[in-house]
């Protein structure tokens, strides 16, 4: 018997011996192999903090935090140039578009959608997709589900632009839709989405139940690309997608029976505020909440090229009256915000240059708590 095995055996004996004594001791032995699980019923106050880990992009992560307790519930390791997790509508599975290389940063590239069990936070399946996933600053529209959750849409950039369609029911790659000149995926129904085109128009795409294209309309120009472009950081509230320009102009894209139509245009900033250089900024700079319809925007003062800078204020707007109803002062500059969907919503605030998540009462704006040491470069905040 080898010395190592003997050593192991000795250890074993020691354990047994000790267990013998354990009975006599105040504390009983802890069992081996106990692994915690996450409650099956997700709290509306949970948040997934996605981290691209910029300095070491092969090690992307998604961290699950309970906004009420500030507890770290668990995490997922999600590969190279990670954007974000996508939560199934029924909460029964987590979709994660991931990229891996056979030698870490070189070798064969493999793209997959990994399916994770939300209770055990472990992989339960993997769907092979074309190795074309866009590698960019993480955006929500990099991957979205259609309204009924039947299809997962993933933006590709090689630099040819297209959308990978994954059937979440059969858990198979359903096909690829070319979107030349148009980027990202913004769902508009159970079988439709649009991409934003370089000329400010939208590509309105409709699918059949197999995920294949039935109709594609190149709309008239919706946005002013040349002078004051809208960011790609749109947020959806019901039948409306809201986009905001570098300068703070709000553009609504309305989903109507007649197709996609430009809605009301208004501004986040008054003329006076504009003169004071107030503007929206950040990565995930907008959030919404229904009942009542509210828009949350990260604001800061800076020049025209600061459209990605973090801000220390969140301005809250009544979307019916299109008026600001609140200014929330943050404790730290935020580049990403998210608001939970429930009736006692929390406002989460994070920033890539920090590892702190701050939690506020989304209605009163009151600071509630901070969670420290979350990842290295937190990007997108995703709530159930």
């Amino acid at each position, binding site marked *: 018997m080898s010395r190592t095995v003997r*050593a*192991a055996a000795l250890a074993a004996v020691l*354990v047994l011996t000790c*267990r013998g004594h*354990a009975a006599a001791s105040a504390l009983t032995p802890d069992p081996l192999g106990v*692994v915690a699980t996450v409650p099956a019923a997700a709290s509306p106050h949970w948040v997934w903090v996605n981290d691209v880990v910029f300095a070491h992009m092969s090690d992307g*992560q998604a961290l699950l935090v309970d906004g009420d307790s500030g507890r770290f519930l668990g995490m997922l390791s999600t590969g190279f140039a990670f954007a974000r997790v996508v939560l199934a509508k029924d909460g029964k599975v987590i979709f994660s578009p991931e990229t891996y290389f056979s030698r870490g940063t070189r070798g064969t590239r493999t793209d997959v959608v990994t399916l994770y069990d939300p209770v055990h936070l472990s992989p339960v399946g993997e769907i092979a997709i074309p190795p074309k996933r866009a590698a960019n600053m993480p955006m929500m529209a990099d991957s979205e589900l259609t309204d009924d959750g039947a299809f997962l849409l993933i933006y590709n950039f090689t630099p040819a632009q297209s959308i990978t369609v994954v059937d979440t029911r059969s858990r198979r790659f359903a096909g690829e839709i070319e979107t030349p000149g148009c980027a990202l995926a913004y769902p508009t129904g159970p079988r439709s989405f649009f991409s934003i085109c370089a000329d400010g128009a939208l590509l309105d795409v409709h699918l059949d139940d197999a995920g294949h294209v039935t109709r594609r309309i190149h709309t008239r120009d919706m946005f002013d690309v040349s002078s004051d472009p809208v960011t790609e950081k749109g947020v959806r509230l019901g039948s409306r997608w809201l986009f905001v320009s570098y300068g703070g102009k709000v553009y609504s894209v309305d989903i109507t029976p007649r197709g996609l139509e430009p809605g009301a245009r208004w501004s986040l900033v008054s003329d006076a505020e504009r003169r004071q250089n107030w503007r929206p900024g950040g990565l995930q700079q907008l959030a919404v909440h229904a009942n009542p319809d509210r828009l949350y925007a990260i604001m800061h003062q800076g020049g025209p090229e600061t459209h990605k800078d973090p801000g220390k204020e969140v301005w809250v707007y009544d979307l019916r009256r299109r008026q600001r109803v609140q200014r929330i002062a943050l404790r730290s500059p935020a580049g990403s915000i998210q608001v939970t969907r429930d009736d006692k919503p929390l406002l989460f605030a994070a920033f890539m240059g920090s590892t702190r998540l701050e939690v506020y009462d989304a209605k009163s704006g009151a600071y509630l708590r901070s969670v420290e040491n979350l*990842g290295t470069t937190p990007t997108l905040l995703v709530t159930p």
Partner: protein
Amino acid sequence: MSRFDRWMEASSRSVARRTSRRGLLGALGALLVGVGVLPLLPVARGAEKPVKGDEPEAGHPEAQDPTSCNYWRHCAIDGFLCGCCGGSASACPPGTVQSPITWVGTCHNPADGLDYVISYNDCCGKSSCGRCLCNRNEGDMPLYVPFRSNDYDWCTGSSVANIPYHCSTARVLARAT
């Protein structure tokens, strides 16, 4: 030399220092996660005085807080505390695998005045948790005495999740005799 000077001198070391200093830990937080000070990181190790007989510390409230580096069971732990990572002092976070083979230490429980054999089983199969780093070095031996060394990534012992390390548990095996 003031504590702060000592911290300036070797920041990471301070992390494991049993004297509570939330302020510094807070300030260090980002940097720590940042520079990736990790379980195996020895700079913090041995900065600990033994819990046993360490009278001014024995009654320390944190000695009974499983998420504290000062928790009595952690007298020879080396890594991220699983209690801060979705697990507990003895259970692994969701989706990780507890490595069955590891090294054992002996810690003194000020609550009952007894010594216990503690097994430091790593939780494995995901990237580093990165939270609640705790490095303490009592009785640590070189690599050539494996079952007494905390310089190994003990996820090695897990056939399922060999070798990615996530966090460390501190299981009571038995009363030491």
